[in-house]
């Protein structure tokens, strides 16, 4: 177990995992961060349980598609969780689809868990959760451009194509989005 705890996220997701212990180590590394992210979005406990399970089930189904551009897979996971949350809020039918595909039983909170979860609402936010909160406040084009550039690692040419912008405009949107993010998060510039 200790050996797995030292492995990178890319190794935990990419290497053969016949008994599921690598994915379990990956889950342990990030589970509380995902729950904390949801708690700070005022998500109730039942929904938080479902969305956390669904987020990791989606990550499991797509583990080979993880691109190790960053040292941690947490931004990738948080973006999946944020997408799931948006889907849920919009009442889309695809909720819990990954759980169904894996025939995964739903996991529920015990009374003790509920108390712990409530403390996550009021505890300090993770840096990643703060960034995602701030990201949501950006104008749509800037948000999309920053996500594509920073989270997905896309080239400016790709971003321009996806968002139907010139490359210059794509760069401007990324730059302005990052400047605004710093401001929203209390930075100096």
């Amino acid at each position, binding site marked *: 177990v200790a050996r797995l705890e030292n492995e990178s996220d890319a190794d935990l997701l990419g290497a*053969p*995992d*016949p*008994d*599921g*212990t*690598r*994915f*379990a180590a990956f*889950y*342990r590394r990030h*589970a*509380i961060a995902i*729950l904390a992210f949801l708690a700070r979005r005022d998500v109730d406990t039942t929904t938080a*349980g479902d969305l*956390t*399970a669904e987020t*990791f*089930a*989606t990550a*499991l*189904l*797509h583990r080979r*598609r*993880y*691109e190790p*551009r960053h040292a941690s897979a947490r*931004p*990738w996971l948080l*973006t*999946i969780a944020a*997408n*799931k949350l948006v889907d849920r809020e919009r009442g*889309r*039918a*695809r909720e819990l*689809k990954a759980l169904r595909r*894996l*025939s*995964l*039983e*739903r*996991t*529920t*909170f*015990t009374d*003790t*868990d509920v108390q*712990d*979860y409530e*403390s*996550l609402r009021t505890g300090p936010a993770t840096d990643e959760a703060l960034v995602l909160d701030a990201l949501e406040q950006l104008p749509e084009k800037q948000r999309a451009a920053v*996500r594509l550039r920073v*989270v*997905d690692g896309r*080239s400016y040419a*790709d971003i321009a*194509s*996806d968002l*139907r912008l010139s490359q210059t405009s794509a760069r401007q949107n990324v730059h302005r989005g990052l400047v605004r993010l710093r401001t929203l998060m209390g930075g100096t510039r």
Partner: protein
Amino acid sequence: MTPKPLHNFVNDLERNLTAAAAAEEHRNSIQRASRTALASPMPLIGIGALALVALVAIVLAITATTGTSTALGAPPATRLPVTPIPAQDATLPKDLRNAESLSHARSLAPTAPGAYVLPADGQWCLAVPDPKTELPTREYGVTCAPDAAFRRDGLKLSLVSGTDAATIVITPDGDTDPRIALANGTTKTVPATDGVIVVRGTYKPNDVLETTAADGTTRRTSLPEAIPTEPGPGDLRDCGHGRIVPLADGCDKR
């Protein structure tokens, strides 16, 4: 030692995920083995993990239903400027992630933003990004055809989610006058740029996309029908611990 927050939930979910990960690995190893056993070339070499409920890639070569068309050369889309795809685009199917394919890709933007046509081991492939993926990274639906079939019939790929759909068609060389012919007898002209046609929306069963092939025959291509996304009366919900209930009841109802 500080108690682990949400100890029960976290441990229960870990047990479930560990078992699911092991089962998924087992399933994948079986799929890999069966793919290895297939010796004949497959027209479909991969579909990106299109992550939506009811999002499917319908992959069909375009079929000529009237006469036999004679293509003049390679489809015009293959003459578009080469736009190499970044080698790190790990979301493309593995078969397409080789230097030869990536460096000879042609972008279909702006007609079909994000889509590419690219060669792959004696075949030509159409790769279209899934606009509704749940992942932060881009995912592609991909269809391929051997070079001769591609020249003769072109390629088509539809992405469908409920009543929302996009169909991308690469026509063979010499095809003209693209139009949608509805089952009620009306037709509607659709634009084609460099032999690339994008048709949005879902259609009724006998609605088709038509083009006039170089030999004057009519080439007909089916268009996607809507896929129901609302749960039906017979759908069930798994509440865990072996308890399955009608979806309408929900897990709270006892």
